[in-house]
């Protein structure tokens, strides 16, 4: 479904994404991990079109979307939940989702309402539909990020650290939610620092370091890899 080849991005002299290639099929969840500043969020920026690429191609269902602006990519089906939530301060939660469903997918009327309700329910925001973005606490802001992405009817879902700040219990619930989202029509990419959660939800894990791919394999292999232990998990995880 999503094919990425040799993606590159530099900011000035700093190369942040350095020749990353991967593919994600429908129904699959690719976990992305790596130290702070490894280039994970930047990779998502490139996929979503928020920053122009310096090199490489991005294909969605075989169609080259590399040069398209973000709004067109959303309409094509690449949706994203930001690491740092960006709710619109004056819009209500429901308005966020209506906007996502209408602008992203061109839905109208009952279909639109249905999609919005479903996204509200899945993310547990049902009772907060009337709150404005400004009023939301961190946790709800993160949920709203996910809900927006869902409401836009994605084919590829980019999730950036949506579990930050959640308790253990909530993380488990989130893992269940993501598992439940899996369907043949949807490819998921999930950046997360909580290794066990990522492991539980992902079919494969991609580890980035200094903008390069270190390893991409099934979760067990990745977490056992000595490079991953050295670069990312650290000594604490040997215990």
């Amino acid at each position, binding site marked *: 479904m999503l094919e990425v080849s040799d993606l590159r991005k530099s900011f000035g*002299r*700093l190369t942040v994404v350095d020749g990353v290639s991967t593919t994600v099929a429908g129904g699959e969840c690719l976990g992305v991990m790596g130290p*702070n*500043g490894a280039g994970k969020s930047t990779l998502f920026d490139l996929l979503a079109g928020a920053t122009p690429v310096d090199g490489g191609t991005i294909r969605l269902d075989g169609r080259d979307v590399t040069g398209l602006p973000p709004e067109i990519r959303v309409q094509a089906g690449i949706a994203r939940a930001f690491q740092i939530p960006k709710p619109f301060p004056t819009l209500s939660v429901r308005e966020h989702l209506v906007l996502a469903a209408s602008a992203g997918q061109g839905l109208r009327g009952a279909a639109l309402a249905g999609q919005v309700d479903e996204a509200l329910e899945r993310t547990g925001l049902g009772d907060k539909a009337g709150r404005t973005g400004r009023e939301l606490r961190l946790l709800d802001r993160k949920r709203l990020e996910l809900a927006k992405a869902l409401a836009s009817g994605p084919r590829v879902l980019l999730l950036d650290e949506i579990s930050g*700040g959640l*308790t*253990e219990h909530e993380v488990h619930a989130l893992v269940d939610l993501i598992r439940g989202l899996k369907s043949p029509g949807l490819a998921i990419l999930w950046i997360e620092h909580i290794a066990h959660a990522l492991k539980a939800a992902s079919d494969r894990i991609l580890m980035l370091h200094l903008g390069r791919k270190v390893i991409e394999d099934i979760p067990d292999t990745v977490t056992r890899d000595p490079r991953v232990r050295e670069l990312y998990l*650290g000594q604490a995880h040997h215990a």
Partner: protein
Amino acid sequence: MLEIRGLDAFYGDFQALFGVDLSLQPGQTLALIGANGAGKSSFLHAICGMTQARGSVRLGDTDLAALPAVGRAAAGVALSPEGRRMFLSLSVRENLLMGANVRRRGPWTLDRVTGLFPILGEFADRPAGLLSGGQQQMVAIGRALMANPALLLLDEVSLGLAPVVAQEVHAALAMLRDQSEMITIMVEQDVNRAIAAGDRFLCLLEGRAALTGPCAGADLDAIGRAYFGEDDT
């Protein structure tokens, strides 16, 4: 010594800290830990005057709570902020000199800081924004040291640092701790490393002190539970 009683912090209507107490002796280092959003940064901000706060904060004879941020800086409080916050249009040297802007006397000079972090001497004339994350972290720490602080606040010390660099920074901090009367409060995500670096620890949970004690012989399991707010039962 640092004496904090009943510290509350606010962002507008939102309360981020609830009655935190703390007391530290000269030369001590506090490891401040807690989950994402627990209020660690808010605690530091409340001490240095970057956010509205209520409660008493005394450093030696000085009543910090009565001073504005500018006055607290002059009284010897220095912060290395989360996210490093470089002055982007200033060179590395100028960033460091900004730290000396309050003109307190003491051992820390440009030369000593570049002695501690040689790479900063090498890059002294580069715009600070072009440095790597780890290097920026060094600038932020060096900039705080340049004030010759009596109370050094370090937020997310090893964020964005390669493990080996993080180790170097911690080694330097350990040296500082042993050499001076400076009080240090350090926020560190890696609990193990934090406990190793501190004399005492304070674990925050949703703005409240969940657990505190000496680092030596600390019970990591208890800290883990306090960290996530799980009940002992």
